[in-house]
């Protein structure tokens, strides 16, 4: 257990995991409040197509995935803001298209079997020093944005019309926020893979909301829960050789259940 800490890969995983956990829980809380958590699932699966595309044309797959995820998030939120009926079905459709294109590309070109597995299920234990630097940069800029504008974002989520009348630059803030969601999704894919991104972003928020407290306490609880889940998930998975993403999500679910049961009492 202790000797694990001496390994570079393990230190990297813990640092990267905590940073990703913080911002995904933070953004996840806003998305849950906005009742838009399925956007994450849609965009994450669509991004899988982007990952495959990157491998195919030979550039960093996470870059193409980021672009695809940005596009899909803006498409989805455009549809929702225009009040298109069936925007939920549109998310499902986009998810299916992106994901199946990704699978098709990969099956045609075969060859990169290992990568597919890490895209689907995450690869936090193989994170490199350079990636840690990139993750730190992205995570701190997202955190800076969120802490500066969290009241504006809250006001917009609470009632967009009122926020506009209050003179809050709703459009600009929403655009920035959508970009942050896309980046957070890509970072989370790195950690837990496309399939479980939505769980990583949503479960801490759902658990924290169960505590029924003020916003600031809800936010802090949500981030704390995410950090606990990430650290213990990584440790257990490295020790017992269980899939990290599964372990993280299972622990988050366990915390959620403990909170639900305790609140019932």
């Amino acid at each position: 257990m202790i000797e694990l800490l001496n390994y570079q890969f393990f230190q990297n995983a813990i640092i990267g995991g905590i940073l990703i956990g913080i911002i995904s829980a933070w953004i996840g809380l806003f998305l849950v409040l906005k009742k838009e958590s399925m956007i994450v699932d849609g965009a994450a699966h669509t991004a899988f197509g982007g990952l495959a595309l990157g491998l195919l044309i030979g550039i960093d797959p996470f870059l193409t995935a980021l672009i695809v995820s940005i596009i899909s998030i803006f498409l989805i939120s455009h549809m929702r803001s225009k009040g298109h009926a069936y925007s939920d079905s549109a998310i499902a459709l986009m998810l299916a298209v992106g994901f199946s294109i990704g699978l098709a590309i990969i099956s045609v070109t075969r060859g990169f079997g290992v990568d597919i597995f890490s895209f689907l299920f995450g690869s936090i234990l193989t994170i490199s020093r350079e990636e840690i630097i990139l993750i730190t940069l992205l995570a701190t800029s997202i955190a800076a944005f969120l802490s500066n504008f969290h009241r504006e974002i809250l006001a917009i989520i609470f009632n967009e019309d009122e926020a506009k009348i209050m003179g809050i630059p709703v459009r600009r803030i929403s655009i920035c926020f959508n970009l942050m969601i896309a980046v957070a999704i890509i970072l989370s894919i790195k950690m837990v893979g496309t399939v479980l991104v939505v769980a990583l972003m949503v479960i801490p928020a759902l658990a924290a909301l169960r505590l029924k407290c003020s916003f600031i306490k809800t936010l802090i609880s949500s981030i704390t829960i995410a950090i606990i889940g990430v650290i213990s998930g990584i440790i257990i998975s490295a020790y017992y050789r269980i899939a990290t993403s599964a372990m993280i999500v299972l622990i988050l679910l366990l915390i959620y259940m403990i909170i639900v049961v305790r609140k019932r009492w």
Partner: protein
Amino acid sequence: MEKVLEVKELKVIRNGRIVIDGAEFEVLKGDYIGIIGPNGGGKTTLLLAILGRIPRISGSIKWFGKELKDFKDWHRIAFIPQDATNFDRNFPLSVKEFVVLGRLGRKAGRKINREDWEEVDLALEFMGLAEVANKRIGELSEGQKQRMFVARALVRKPEVLILDEPIAGMDASIQEKFYQKMSELNHKMNVTILMVSHDLSVVFCKMNKVICVNKEVYVAKVGKEAEEVLRKAYGEHFYFVFHRHECRGEFVD
């Protein structure tokens, strides 16, 4: 007198039906205006249109001399919508955290400071919400929620205050206090107030103008000339409406 709002030939259509037809009126600085009219007459529609929240078919709207589309100083205005209290009960905000949102809209990303929190405490104290300041907003009673929205409007220190039936759930003593505060804001701070109200006695006692909305929009000074306006706005129900406030002996000439 400075013109706060200037509306010309405003026409608004909702669901294919004309709801506001050729509204034409001015609001001057320091006005205290009651907006009255039957249910479905278009009061809420009129407010949302002048705030740019629903589109208009024709006409012009000027705030502080600026066309609506060029108007940017929204921090000068506070608005409480009719269905304000109809929010998600589980939203994780304390009353204090909610009211401080009223301080937004001046400069995006401005840090909330001590002075902002002091304003919040004052407003909560004033609206009798100090004891529930740390409760979650969903736990308040209907009347308390309404007072919370008033508190959020007050911390904006607005030059114009627009309220769409703000007192529906408040108890009698709070209503009285609320109207006192409105008069005080209007007289001492020269805040311009537009308030939708169905309580004609209050409108005729405390306010200086009425705007009657029933598809067409009529404006009158409070007093005898308002009779004609009421007759047009309420049609056949006019006698009942008019008689009611006369009975209370509160008709101000």
